[in-house]
């Protein structure tokens, strides 16, 4: 299956809480496969969250972020129906983007 990003954004009062689960191996480069060969490092470097096109969080990740990373944060503002954008780029230059509306 293609690289996926699951996003869950909810608003309560002034605060919008965003949770995201990103499908990515986040290989650290320190782990060997069954054949004893090092699995090369492969991890997301930059992940960006936007609300109505404005950046609300930039994450810089390294190989020590867990496989299929999870992140949860919140920001002020945001209404039900507003689009939340998520995009990432990894150390191999692959990228993925998605968007979801605030519930």
């Amino acid at each position, binding site marked *: *299956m293609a690289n*996926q990003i*699951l996003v*869950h954004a909810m608003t309560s009062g002034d605060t919008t809480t965003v949770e*995201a689960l990103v499908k990515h191996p986040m290989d650290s480069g320190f782990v060997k496969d069954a054949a004893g060969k090092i699995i090369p490092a492969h991890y997301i470097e930059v992940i960006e969250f936007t609300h109505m096109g404005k950046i609300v969080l930039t994450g810089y990740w390294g190989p020590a972020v867990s496989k*299929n990373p*999870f992140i949860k944060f919140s920001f002020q503002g945001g209404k039900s129906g507003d689009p939340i954008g998520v995009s990432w780029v990894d150390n191999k230059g692959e990228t993925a983007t998605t968007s979801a509306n605030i519930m």
Partner: protein
Amino acid sequence: MRLAFIALALTVSAPLAQAASQPDPAADMKAFQGYFLKQFPKLPLAAYVNGPYNFSKSESDQWKQIMEFPPYQFAVDDGKKLFETKFPDGKTYASCFPNGGIGIAQNYPMFDAKTGKVVTLGIAINRCRVANGQKKLKLTVGPLADISAYMTSTSDGKPINVVIPHNPKALAAYEAGKEYFYTRRGQLNFSCASCHVQAAGMHLRGDVLSPALGLTAAFPLYRSSWGDMGTLVRRFIGCNQKVKSEPSKPDSTAYRDLAYFMTYMDNGLPESGPGARP
């Protein structure tokens, strides 16, 4: 009147006629569940589906955080897509299962009178593939685990309902599973029960040993130590290896019967797979 009398006499004499070794799954299940309820009086029956998390606050706190966005979610989504993808003959998995495969995972493993064998959900998925001209999938990991995860998710909360029909072969399969469960094997001389009954709730190195009761309810499972999904058979293989015993084949009769016995012991507990564990 006379007939009724004979019938009565038969029911009365039946237990006497049956030797003590005659399998009695219902009585076994009552004793099995009763053992754990007595051992851990604070835990209600339904809580057993949470396995090791009943025994460590720190672990259950971490688990609750992880369950905010469960790591098996991708598997459920992928599984749903695979489940709904048509075979070349135009049919889907839904055509092979009662109720189109939705909300039925709690009834597996099932005894198949035609073949005289136990059929787990994974084996049923593979049978469906073969019936539609497709190759079998691995029973341990990958797409089959994803499809199982999706199908199981549609049974969320339904009481586990494994049936052992009055069929000598079904009873024999159950009994074989029971024997496998309690038999010590491997160089370390452990049975399934050594860890998951007698030492349930205790620590083995850093981990809490899950009680056998409720253990099957959370499968398929995302284990952090695997880093992906696995089926109950994958766990059987892992457990055998841990006691230094050569694992059986994933579709072996031994593993089918073991799953039959263990899941039957969980009858009445809410289906809670897919699950997440350390």
